């Protein structure tokens, strides 16, 4: 039996909404709909972990995929570079946490808003041949109230300033204390005429909404917060949803189909309980918040005579336009202890390269933040030992490790990815997961402009590292192309044209009137990394509009 929490609804009577996935978006929509008196069943394939369940367990989380699951756990995926390749089995290519709160539980907490330009960049910059680069159907101004709502409802720390996109209200919490990598980036930026500002993070710098301030333990990215200071949907939204008395959270439930009727409306969500028992929850409307990998997969699995290419896929865009965000890193060695393994991942950001000059000959943009080269993790550091050219095993390697762990800082570039039809999520034709569902198959190769952008950011980061006074430095980016990601964006893009997009500007399926999709898949362009803030803002906005539509009897 699934564990039933809070409200309890019979499966054979339609609830107002079934929400699939309790992550960044699902948790918010569940809270918004249930506190607006709608009956909600929230289905989550993972367990409901609590702060006390989380540990500083690098082997378990990073290498045994305890939160993210993978081939080792019966959830294999496949990956290929292009359609002409046969996809190969991988532990996972598309990574996400399987637990209540989804990846908002284990993410870094970095919380950049998109900026005005992100929504209109295609028309400002002009089209890019061979890509699906288009404007969003909404503007920054339309999303801004929801960004602010996210700030105040979940708890965000930051410092308002000229570096911010326009904001209607200050951050609820002051910025986190700066770490040594942040100081090094700030001083370097100042020397070179750039601005490093306090990184906005969904981590509490002071007590807020009954939750405590961060204790700087250093295990944010990839880990669950042990004191509930990270503002995941699990700690900020789910409790409110459950307390409403209108939301039933069912964990360990793996959804595998959305059934539709002759009228083309979604009628029920079919899932397996932990022991394999099949259940179906009837609903008046369905909201998919399963993430940019699982949402398209579910739509494909829900194909029928009426929807032969997958549910809600008359545009053919489901699964396409997958965007990872580009990434590069420059690691530097310093004379004095940096101790970047303490506290949150990033405390300073440079956004002077948000939009690159068109004259460079390629499209791109991004931000640079300051971190530990290996997430502050002992095993990751040692795995990459010999980073600055020394041996990778033996006595000298061993001697160098201490320096490489405690005396290093990294400047990381987080950059744009162009939406391409050839980068996509599909169902693997051969491989099945432990439930017998076709495995997720990823096809991905970064656009040449994305690669040029990563290289550009690596060059700037190298200059910054010199300016910071590093005694040794090394930079890299994925020159052979990205082959895994945790930013799963664009696979059910929003748009006004049903012929070229999957959901409308309010996250409603163009094809199925009582079906909504809201998560990273909704994003039209990639932003410059750190998409969770935008996913959450879209969720608040979608919920507002769902409630309004329901009030008008239009669902």
């Amino acid at each position, binding site marked *: 039996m699934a564990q039933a929490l809070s409200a309890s609804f019979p499966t054979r009577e339609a609830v107002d909404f079934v929400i699939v996935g309790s992550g960044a978006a699902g948790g918010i929509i569940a809270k918004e709909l249930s506190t607006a008196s709608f009956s909600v069943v929230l289905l989550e394939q993972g367990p409901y972990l609590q702060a006390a369940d989380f*540990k*500083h*367990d*690098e*082997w*378990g989380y990073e*290498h*045994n995929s305890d939160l993210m699951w993978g081939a*080792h756990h019966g959830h294999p995926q496949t990956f290929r570079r292009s359609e002409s390749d046969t996809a190969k089995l991988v532990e996972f290519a598309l990574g996400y946490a399987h637990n209540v709160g989804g990846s908002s539980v284990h993410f870094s907490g970095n919380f950049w808003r998109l900026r005005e330009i992100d929504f209109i960049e295609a028309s400002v910059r002009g089209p890019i041949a061979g890509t699906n680069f288009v404007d969003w159907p909404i503007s920054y101004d339309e999303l801004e109230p929801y960004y602010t709502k996210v700030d105040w409802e979940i708890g965000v720390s930051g410092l308002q300033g000229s570096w911010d996109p326009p904001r209607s209200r200050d951050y609820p919490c002051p910025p986190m*204390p*700066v*770490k*040594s*990598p*942040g*100081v*090094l980036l*700030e*001083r370097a930026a100042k020397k070179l005429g750039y601005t490093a500002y306090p990184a906005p993070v969904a981590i509490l710098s002071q007590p807020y909404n009954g939750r405590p301030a961060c*204790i*700087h*333990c*250093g295990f944010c990215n990839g880990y669950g917060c*042990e004191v509930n200071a990270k503002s995941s949907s699990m700690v900020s939204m789910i409790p409110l949803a459950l307390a409403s008395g209108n939301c039933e959270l069912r964990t360990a439930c793996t959804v595998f189909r959305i059934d539709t009727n002759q009228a083309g409306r979604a009628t029920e969500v079919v899932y397996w309980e932990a022991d394999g028992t099949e259940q179906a929850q009837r609903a008046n409307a369905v909201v998919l918040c399963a993430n940019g990998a699982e949402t398209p997969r579910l739509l494909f699995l829900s194909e029928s005579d009426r929807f032969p290419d997958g549910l809600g896929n008359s545009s053919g865009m489901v699964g396409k336009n997958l965007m990872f965000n580009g990434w590069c890193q420059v690691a530097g060695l*310093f004379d*004095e*202890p*940096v*101790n*970047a*393994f*303490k*506290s949150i991942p990033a405390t300073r950001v440079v956004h002077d390269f948000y939009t690159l000059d068109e004259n460079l000959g390629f499209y791109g943009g991004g931000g640079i933040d300051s971190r530990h080269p290996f997430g502050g993790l*002992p*095993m990751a*550091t*040692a*795995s990459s*030992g010999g980073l600055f050219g020394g041996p*990778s*095993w*033996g*006595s000298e*390697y*061993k001697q160098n*490790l*201490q320096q*490489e*762990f*405690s005396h290093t800082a990294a400047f990381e570039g987080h950059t744009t990815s162009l939406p391409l039809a050839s980068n996509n999520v599909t169902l693997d034709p051969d491989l099945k997961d432990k439930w017998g569902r076709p495995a997720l198959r990823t096809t991905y190769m970064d656009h040449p402009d994305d690669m040029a952008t990563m290289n550009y950011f690596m060059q700037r980061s190298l200059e910054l590292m010199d300016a910071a006074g590093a005694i040794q430095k090394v930079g890299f980016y994925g020159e052979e192309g990205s082959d895994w990601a945790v930013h799963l964006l664009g696979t059910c893009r929003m748009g006004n044209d049903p012929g070229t997009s999957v959901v409308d500007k309010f996250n409603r399926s163009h094809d199925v009137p009582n079906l909504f999709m809201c998560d990273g898949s909704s994003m039209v362009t990639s932003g410059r990394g750190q998409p969770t803030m935008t996913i959450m803002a879209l969720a608040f906005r979608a919920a507002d509009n769902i409630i309004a539509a329901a009030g008008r009897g239009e669902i």
Partner: protein
Amino acid sequence: MTQQRISRRAFLRTTGDVARGSCIALTLPMILAACNRATEARLNGEDFQTLSEEEAREFDAIAARIIPSDGTPGATEAGVIYFIDNVLGDGREEQHATLQEGLRQLQTAAVMNYDTAYFYLLEPSQQDQLLTDIEKSEFFTSIRYLTVAGMFSLPEYGGNRDNLGFDLIGFEDRHAWQPPFGHYDKDYAETGE
């Protein structure tokens, strides 16, 4: 979990406490010698879950060249081999098979080059030479990965005994920290920029 396994754990814990409790009185070489004796006892007297005794000796010897016991404790003292034994038994049969095949090739090389049947019986310089020859192989990559993982994972997985790995790189597994965290933010707080 078998009784044997529990007793092995209990044994490990005891030897660990002895070594740790003696830190004040013992000089470093004496600690290393104590650790080595404990390891020797474990390798002789304790069953492994997944590895054969021969594999355990050989993989331990390889791990000891990757993170040697020189001035400070290495992979052997940290019990890396017990981590490897644990995780290979946890749904990683394929990786175990890769390691077995790689070990056979390494032993063949030991015979051909030094007329010795086992890697662990070779001189350290001979061991290093053989490992250098296969540095790029999947076998070496795998055993290096597991050695590093065993050295720096939580002790509950069997390696990193007494946090020897964490101590080696200056990592302290604490629940909480307070600023200043490092030299540069301390300086920043003092100078204001």
